[in-house]
């Protein structure tokens, strides 16, 4: 168990980061901190994917010097997934930020709970 | 085939058209329409029950295993005749009575829908059809309860709705199990639970039977779910109360007969804890209903409590599961509906003419409306069970059935409680008649004026009274007819 954990330290770190990000997204009441949490969480997943796709001693799957052998390169699919994931997480973060700006303009605060309380008072 | 479907759907659609259509030009055309629908429905139903010989008619399939099907058997005939007689009488009574209520069109619309749904309940051939129309009955009769839309009425209507829906769901709960363990949901005399299933799952099936008894018992005002009845019945307009108290509650009775004798089978339930608990509940209800009626000053409420108690007479007869007692129960179904409808109509006529609602205010009423009070007195005697009225015959059968059943304790306790309750019945019905006819020395005779209600109100009361007396004088044919049912199911 212990040795497994140590030899896969990349995955272990990514899981810890995922937990940190998840906790932040769930528990922070400040919207910006939530978004930071979101990004940590997503990045942790990309780290996990990259770690999984990496094979020690090989290079990125870009054909250089005419080497065509599969043995020379790492698995390209996780890299592709990471790229797609980054696109998704960027757009989601952008949307969250724009919502945050809207809310800040209206209520002059980033605290979601406080906004909820203000909304209840408004009685909308 | 056609007649059954028509007799059910004609009044329902007529009712829907009345509700959805534009207001009639005047009252007369509305009444004409309603009476026309009533006549046509009567004819259709009579055709249906005379021409149909017990064949199954599938309307459509809800799912592969659950057809909506109708069938006319002897029990349907008994109940549909009762439904029709009382509905037509109360309908005619409302022609005059509803003059002083608003929104007549809505009343008649729902009245006709309820009539159609009741007929459908009588003709239902399996449990799912019965359940379907049982729900529809609740939903379509709520508008009758909350007709005047006062806060009190709406609250009573809600109470009625919740009790009934809860009851219906208890039945639905049982339906799932019966579908699993029974061979079919189709009513067949003697039950549908196979012997192997009965032996293997006896515990759970008994539990289900009990749950369903309580469920249908809600409509029939059986303890512990009776509380809605005295609240909901009195707030409706008098003819609607009559319909509710005399006919709609009988849907619960019909449901209990169907599940006990046509789904589980008397032989399965006889001698089990379900039967004992059921008997205890009915006897408690009989006693409690009479006591509460005895203490109640408002006439309509008093009659509603009386309904609670009288319905449990019927249920007691059914719970004994012996030939005579079940005959008595079925006879009492007819008697009680005629009598209770007549009583509610009498009280309604009094309210309509004088506005008096409490028993105490009715002193000297016999001088003002003698004919009506005579009818009241006769049917009261019937409800108490004094010969030669129908009530005597039905209670006689109930008591002899119980005595000969040989069930320990209950065979003598039952008749004893019925007797006590009969005394209480006399105690809460007769003083009104006595005070009405003999108001005593202190009564101011000069203020008496004749207030006899019009023919529209008088005729239904008279017809119902005569029917209840006729049943007592010539019970032979009816008992003979009922024995055909009893033979098959007990």
């Amino acid at each position: 168990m212990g040795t497994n954990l140590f030899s896969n330290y990349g995955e272990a770190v990514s899981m810890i980061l995922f937990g940190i990000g998840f906790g932040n997204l769930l528990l922070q009441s400040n919207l910006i901190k939530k978004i930071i949490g979101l990004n940590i969480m997503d990045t942790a997943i990309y780290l996990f994917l990259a770690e999984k796709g990496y094979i020690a001693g090989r290079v990125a799957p870009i054909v250089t010097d005419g080497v065509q052998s599969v043995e020379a390169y790492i698995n390209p699919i996780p890299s592709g997934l990471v790229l797609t994931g980054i696109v998704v997480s960027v757009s989601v973060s952008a949307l969250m930020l724009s919502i945050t700006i809207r809310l800040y303009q209206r209520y002059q605060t980033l605290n979601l709970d406080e906004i909820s309380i203000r909304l209840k008072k408004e009685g909308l | 085939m056609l007649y059954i479907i028509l007799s059910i759907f004609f009044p329902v659609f007529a009712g829907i058209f009345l509700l959805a259509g534009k207001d009639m030009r005047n009252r007369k055309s509305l009444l004409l329409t309603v009476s026309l629908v009533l006549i046509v429905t009567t004819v259709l139903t009579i055709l249906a029950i005379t021409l149909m010989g017990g064949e199954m008619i599938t309307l459509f399939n809800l799912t592969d295993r659950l057809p909506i099907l109708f069938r006319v058997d002897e029990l349907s005939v008994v109940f549909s005749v009762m439904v029709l007689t009382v509905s037509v009488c109360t309908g005619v009574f409302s022609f005059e009575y509803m003059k002083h209520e608003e929104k007549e069109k809505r009343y008649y619309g729902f009245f006709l829908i309820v009539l159609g749904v009741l007929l459908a309940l009588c003709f239902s051939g399996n449990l799912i059809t019965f359940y379907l129309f049982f729900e529809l009955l609740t939903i379509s009769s709520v508008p009758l309860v909350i007709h005047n839309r006062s806060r009190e009425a709406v609250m009573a209507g809600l109470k009625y709705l919740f009790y009934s829906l809860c009851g219906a769901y208890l039945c639905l709960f049982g339906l799932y199990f019966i579908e699993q363990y029974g061979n079919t949901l189709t009513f067949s005399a003697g039950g549908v639970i196979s012997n192997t299933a009965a032996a293997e799952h006896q515990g759970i099936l008994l539990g289900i039977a009990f749950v369903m008894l309580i469920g249908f018992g809600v409509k029939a005002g059986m303890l512990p779910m009776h509380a809605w009845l005295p609240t909901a019945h009195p707030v409706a307009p008098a003819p609607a109360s009559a319909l509710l108290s005399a006919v709609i509650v009988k849907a619960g009775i019909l449901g209990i007969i169907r599940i006990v004798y046509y789904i589980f089978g008397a032989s399965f339930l006889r001698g089990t804890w379900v039967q004992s608990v059921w008997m205890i509940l009915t006897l408690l209800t009989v006693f409690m209903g009479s006591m509460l009626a005895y203490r109640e000053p408002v006439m309509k409420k008093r009659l509603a409590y009386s309904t609670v108690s009288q319905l449990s007479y019927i249920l007691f007869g059914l719970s004994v599961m012996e030939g005579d007692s079940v005959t008595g129960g079925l006879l009492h179904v007819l008697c009680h509906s005629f009598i209770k409808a007549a009583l509610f109509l009498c009280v309604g006529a009094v309210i309509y003419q004088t506005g008096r609602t409490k028993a105490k205010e009715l002193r000297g009423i016999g001088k003002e409306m003698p004919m009506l009070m005579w009818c009241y007195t006769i049917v009261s005697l019937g409800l108490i069970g004094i010969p030669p009225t129908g009530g005597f015959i039905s209670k006689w059968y109930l008591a002899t059935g119980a005595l000969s059943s040989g069930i320990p304790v209950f065979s003598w306790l039952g008749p004893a409680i019925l007797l006590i309750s009969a005394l209480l019945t006399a105690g809460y019905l007769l003083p009104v008649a006595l005070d009405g006819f003999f108001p005593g020395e202190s009564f101011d005779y000069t203020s008496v004026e004749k207030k006899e209600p019009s023919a529209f109100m008088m005729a239904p009361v008279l017809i119902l009274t005569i029917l209840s007396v006729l049943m007592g004088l010539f019970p032979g044919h009816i008992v003979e007819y009922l024995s055909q049912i009893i033979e098959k199911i007990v």
Partner: protein
Amino acid sequence: MELVQNFPAVSILLCLFAGIISSGLKKKAARWINTALILAEIVLNACTLGYLLETGESYVYVMGKFPAPWGNEIRAGVLEALTALFFCVIMLLSLEGGRKKLADEVEEGKTYLYYVLADLLLSSLLALVYTNDLFTAYVFVEINTIAACGLIMIRQNGRTIEAAARYMIMSLLGSGLLLMGICMLYDLTGHLLMSNIKEQVEILYASGEYKIPLLVTIALISVGLSIKSALFPFHAWLPDAYGYSTVSSAAILSSLVSKGYIFLLIKIIYRVIGFPIFYNSRIIDMLFIFGLMGMVFGSLSAIKENDVRRMIAFSSVAQIGYIYMGIGMGTQAGMSASIFHVLSHAATKSLLFIAAIGLTDVSDGSRKFRHLTGAAYRNKWAGAAFTVGALSMVGVPLFSGFISKLLFAQAAVQNEIKMLPALIVLGISTILNAIYFMKTVIRIYTPVGGNRYDTVTFKDMKSYVAMLICFIALNVILGVSSQPVTDLIEQGLAMFS
């Protein structure tokens, strides 16, 4: 390959292109493109369904020239086509029913964006339904989330933006877990295509290796998707999002978006993990328990609610509980009951939302119960439609709700252990349903003295009434002749494995 086999892929792409094109064209065109698009989708999916029924077999459609295990695939079976068709129909009816309200509530210049978002949403829903590739599913889950968030926010007031923020946060938590689960599955099996993963998972399971990681993966995916579909206790965002957004959005969100995720979960259970493995994982019992809790607590919150829109929203929580209870039952019958309930709830809930808006409109826009008194007299059609929806929810025979309850109960009776809790909670929840829906029905039919509010007539709202009638018809059809639909569902489930 036959022409019809292209239709699922075409229908997804068509939506995407329609969204892109209508954001560039004139603003008024967006509406017509959207309507035409959905009609076209209905035709395409109906053709697919017909084709599948004729051949009786599902098929896999390879996107591009790369065969499995590298390429991206679409898979069409009876269940997929049926669900897609149904989603399109509900979408059309919901959009049309809320059209007038949309014009009132959204700024003039922005309505075309609404249709763009609706197009995107439809494309992602169809992709979720049809895809055979897990990562594609994830991407479209995110597109779905973004589009849904836009639908909530398009009506600009504080409540909706706050609701959108909460919705986004919960959704992102859910999709984070889902993505993690997918990555771990990829890690365990080395595949992203559903059928290939399933083979590998079966081998893994048989060999007994990686038991805990597999369990964690199943848990991550189930929890992620149940967060996204607002299973109790993850429903905090739901009442605000459904209650304050414009009515079409509420109808679409409650009946389609959450159902899309549920459909994906069912698909993953059958096509990725395999039903027996999922059944043995005990995650199923968690779903069952949370489903039961949702049924009760959702209804209880609905009873306490004083705002009709939020009440209907809370009722959704309860209904999603029903669906998860069916999934958690662990029988084929329970699963098909859940899928039937997905359809029946979609038809009923959008009907209720659309009808409720008719009622609030004739009460000065107030959604409080005391203002709704007598609203059914002021807008007769909406009143009748609301009553039908309420009766269906309560489970009165003849309407679709009864059939789903019946199916749930029939499924429950087959599982000895879960039978009693399921049936008892079903009973309790039904009675609670009856309490708040019947209360509302009686409230809207209680006459009110004086004539404070306007009355609307048929002439003012022809298309609205037409949509209500369509919804009612859909409900009654599902309720009266449910057998063909349940047969289709069973057939589709059989094709899944």
